């Protein structure tokens, strides 16, 4: 079954749309809160990810992952392990690259990545098309779905956000299980757990074990 089917208006996408509309208020809060959190986290320690074979693609992917680490507060080595059988990073990069402002966003990040307030520069002080793309990327890593940056902007600027309809798209079946929202909550997606039987009776590992490099 092709993962691409999820990007069309199939049953799953329709379900996601319905959920998104119902959860508008909660999502609005999440969007704002996540942006604030990312701006506060700043750069995190990272390790080199497994290189790919095309140097150009390599460089762009590397920069995208560094940016993603800043946006999410999750270590680059956790987002893209050196030995990475899932390679969700490639799906996410391909999704983000479809946006016109992607080059602008990477360029802005590249020029400021050493700055202590790089998150603030990107999420709060950049052009609207750049900063809302950054939010879409952040949400993609956390939720495994794609929010159109234009929708996020409309939502943020609307005097009545609860009346706005936003239709995120499920990126793929594996994007659902790879959503960082679950790991940041020290739990697992509904219906998909790698934990052994009875894990619910014990405390989960510390948050740092999920999001920081070893």
């Amino acid at each position: 079954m092709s993962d691409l089917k999820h990007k069309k208006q199939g049953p799953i996408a329709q379900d996601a749309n319905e959920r998104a509309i119902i959860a508008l208020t909660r999502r609005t809060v999440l969007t704002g809160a996540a942006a604030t959190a990312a701006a506060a986290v700043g750069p995190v320690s990272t390790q080199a990810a497994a290189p790919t074979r095309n140097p150009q693609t390599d460089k762009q992917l590397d920069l995208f992952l560094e940016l993603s680490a800043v946006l999410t507060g999750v270590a680059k080595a956790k987002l893209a392990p050196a030995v990475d059988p899932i390679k969700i990073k490639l799906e996410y990069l391909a999704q983000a690259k479809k946006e016109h402002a992607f080059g602008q966003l990477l360029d802005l990040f590249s020029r400021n990545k050493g700055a202590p307030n790089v998150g603030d520069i990107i999420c709060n002080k950049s052009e609207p098309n750049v900063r809302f793309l950054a939010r879409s990327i952040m949400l993609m890593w956390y939720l495994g779905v794609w929010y159109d940056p234009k929708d996020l902007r409309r939502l943020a600027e609307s005097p009545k956000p609860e009346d706005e309809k936003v239709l995120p798209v499920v990126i793929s079946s594996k994007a659902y299980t790879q959503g960082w929202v679950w790991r940041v909550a020290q739990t697992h997606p509904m219906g998909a757990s790698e934990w052994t039987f009875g894990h619910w009776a014990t405390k989960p590992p510390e948050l740092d074990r999920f999001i920081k490099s070893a």
Partner: protein
Amino acid sequence: MSKKALLFAGIVGAFGFTMLAGSSSSIGQVAGAASDSLEDKIDPPVANCNVTPDSNANQNPPPSKIVPTPITRSLLTSGQPCAQTVNGKGPHGNDLLLNLQRGFDFYSWLTFVALNSPNDGAPIGESKKGPDPTTVWEDINNYMQLADVMLPEGRPPTWGVRDTVPPQCKDFRDGMMLIRMTEETFNQPFKSGPLIDQNGEYALFDILMNKPMFDYIAEHRLYSVQGQEEFAGPIIFPSGSNPTKDKDGKPIPGRMGAIMLKVSWKVLGNNDDPRKFHTVDAMVYTPPSEKPKTNATCVRRKLGLVGFHAVHKTEFAPQWIWTTFEHVDNVPDNQEVKARKSRRYNFYNATSAASRKPNQLPPQPWNPSKEPFADHFKSQIVREISVTDDVPALNKGFQTILAGTVWANYILISTQWPTDFRSATDPTGAPAPTFLANTTLETYSQGKIPIASSSCMACHGNATTQHKPATPSDFTFTLEKAH
């Protein structure tokens, strides 16, 4: 984690999974190395672990060019790996995932060759017992069937001793395979359904284990529900390890660790060519049933091997290494279907491809005592996931050195292994490949849908004992079969 494991953890952290030591040719214990420790009793040192790597990447000094290990007939006598010998460096340059996957796939072939060698110690193709003799794993002194371990009433099993042969199997002789029909013998995991060959016969499944796994079960009385209830500790089967040296240069011997096998057979009919299969002479015993009322039966069958899982727990793969092989004629993959190849398959009919949706369950009822299957039903199975990158070349290489034997008709599908075996947040160790299925053993759960599709580790990570409350059983469902 043991001191030895901690020592290795540092090595792995620096180099991935690199482990190398001297190679030798046959399996045996280390002379004079045995002690009275429980570890030595359950998983004794092994003198001759096969540590042949898949390339020259780990040579010292480093080679000017990394090249794959030549696949020659010497590998047929190189012995059984006690653990993987893999390296992040390799023929794929800096691609750690591909290099490590290749190493695990190479390990899988070495394991397959060792386990399917004749039980008389001869190399494949050179036994005096004939062209297709009893294999290492079919010898009850090397591997025991699950039915002979999990005995009725929770009786303690004895290594190398078969449970009482049912009186209906009066033709049973030493050297034959005894298949005791239970639901798991014909119905796939989670009762997902049987597989019916092109003669309308049920495929049959069996599970076996090696002595370290057996001894761990026996030592801790895990062969009975009562024993499992009384066992207080976490279940940790012994791990295989390669020989190495401690920080003072003192040799540390290798150990084999726990290995379990799951095999699938097809009943060979008049239109099957037995020269293309590894075959066994089997008695298939079906116990009596009440609904519907039937008497016990025991029939003689010639079975051909069509699927072979080898699952090995090792020091750097506490989630176990999951190797799977199939007979080359089992099913086509999607590309072969599109190419409309008209060859004969065990579980697919090319001539009816256009009219039949593949990978559908047989209609109910499922009753293996009634063969052939009702209404001439035959499974129409297609492989949904292609083999991993290096597998075709490895298959070709090993099939070349196995030419002239039945074993040239078997192919590796892939090997699932943990990419992050120490992960504190993913007990399955982030398996690669994420999904893996054998078309004869996980027929109806092929695919790439999380949770729904077959992943060895993700599935077996849910295995438990029959203890109440249930406790994890270290990636094996075998303990659920205790009485």
